[in-house]
């Protein structure tokens, strides 16, 4: 229990620093220090019961005294302290139920236990706002759900039904570049398509007149639109016009 208390305190002692630059070594260093501290404690006070449920209530001085007055050579006690935290219970940060919220427009939103939403709520309840200065300023103007949503999506209407049913394909070079963005940058580690096959289909599509599209072409068309839409998000040039166009493609596709 002692060990866990220390861990929790250390972890949240300076959260704002870690939020900005979470040094991976930091946690490891903490763990090593904790292990050392425990080892020292056990050597000096082998009778000190780290799992003692009274630990919180009693003062540390009192515990140290009682540990010292106990006979040191008691074998039973020694074996017990040898495995102090084998099945210690850790207190969870969050409550065991999630949060179910209703917004102004009558939409329900459930956030489960493991969600960041519940975590942050609990965190704020426990430590107050002062530890999260950046979060607080964010929160003045926007609700949490707005923070989680992209700002862009709140402004532009996601479904504009005035769009023409079919949007013309961009020039082949643009299409290829956008697709490369998607396949090589965005989802290099999670590519669900076979790259050569994808580009073979792309070229086939460009070499066919729209009137002569066969089933395979028609099937591939939405995929191409969406891949280009994703590619646009990851576009290096950040061309505003293309961005809007591709949003249009995306919407057209979703409508379809």
């Amino acid at each position, binding site marked *: 229990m002692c060990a866990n208390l220390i861990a929790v305190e250390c972890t949240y002692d300076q959260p704002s620093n870690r939020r900005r630059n979470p040094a991976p070594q930091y946690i490891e260093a903490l763990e090593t220090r904790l292990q050392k501290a425990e080892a020292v404690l056990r050597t000096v006070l082998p009778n000190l019961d780290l799992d003692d449920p009274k630990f919180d209530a009693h003062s540390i001085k009192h515990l140290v005294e009682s540990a010292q007055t106990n006979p040191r050579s008691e074998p039973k006690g020694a074996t017990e302290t040898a495995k102090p935290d*084998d*099945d*210690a219970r850790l207190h969870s940060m969050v409550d065991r139920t999630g949060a179910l919220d209703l917004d102004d427009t009558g939409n329900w939103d459930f*956030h489960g236990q*493991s969600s960041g939403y519940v975590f942050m709520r609990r965190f704020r309840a426990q430590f107050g706002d002062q530890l999260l200065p950046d979060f607080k300023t964010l929160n003045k103007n926007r609700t949490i759900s707005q923070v989680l949503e992209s700002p862009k999506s709140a402004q532009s209407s996601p479904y504009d039904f005035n769009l023409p049913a079919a949007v013309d394909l961009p020039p082949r070079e643009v299409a290829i570049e956008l697709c490369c963005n998607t396949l090589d940058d965005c989802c*290099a580690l*999670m590519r669900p398509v*076979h790259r050569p096959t994808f580009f073979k289909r792309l070229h086939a599509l460009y070499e066919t007149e729209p009137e002569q599209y066969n089933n395979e072409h028609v099937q591939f068309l939405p995929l191409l639109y969406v891949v280009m839409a994703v590619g646009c*998000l990851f576009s290096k040039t950040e061309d505003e016009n293309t961005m809007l166009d591709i949003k249009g493609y995306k919407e057209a*596709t979703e409508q379809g």
Partner: protein
Amino acid sequence: MLDITDCRDLVSLQTVLFMILFLQSSAKLPTCYAYIGIALRACCRLGLHRVVSNKFNPIELEERKRAFWLVRKLDSYVGAVLGLPQMLSDDDVDQEFPTEVEDEFITPEGIKPMPAGIFPLLKATNASTRLTHTLRKVVRYIYPIKGLDSASLDQRYTISHRRIRELERDLQNWMDELPMDLRPSENANKELSRYFKQPILLVGKLRC
């Protein structure tokens, strides 16, 4: 153009997958969750979660595996971040991981051997897919729904330290199995494994 509720072929499924990536990249996670649900159900209808005896050409076979494991991974991540349940149990799945070969070497005729010295990215993909197994375990252990002392009015609960240690062991094993090229000298993967080291901070970290 596409009826996503009747997604019965690979190309349509891939389309939905890229829609999900689009939504994920534009930070609309709750919407993402809905689409992932659709994609996962579509995967099951296409039989992607099972090893089937039908004759597919190698490209199609690999695309099937990739699509399935990608959806599965997204489902785990987005579910964990939103605190919403997974839709597929590990017991329902016997699909194999994608073959760890670069795309150029997969042809309709067969999978050609790769020359030495090429590191297929799919090795990293599969490693991160394996990690989602631990992520699911983290969610199950750290954020249990049942089996708690429901008599107590206190909403807080405790977690066995032994289980935390088990999770840490899992992560260590995962690290030990990681291909040499992906070992901590590469920051990206080091970071990835760090996210899970402190399960209590898991969600906060994932958001970062």
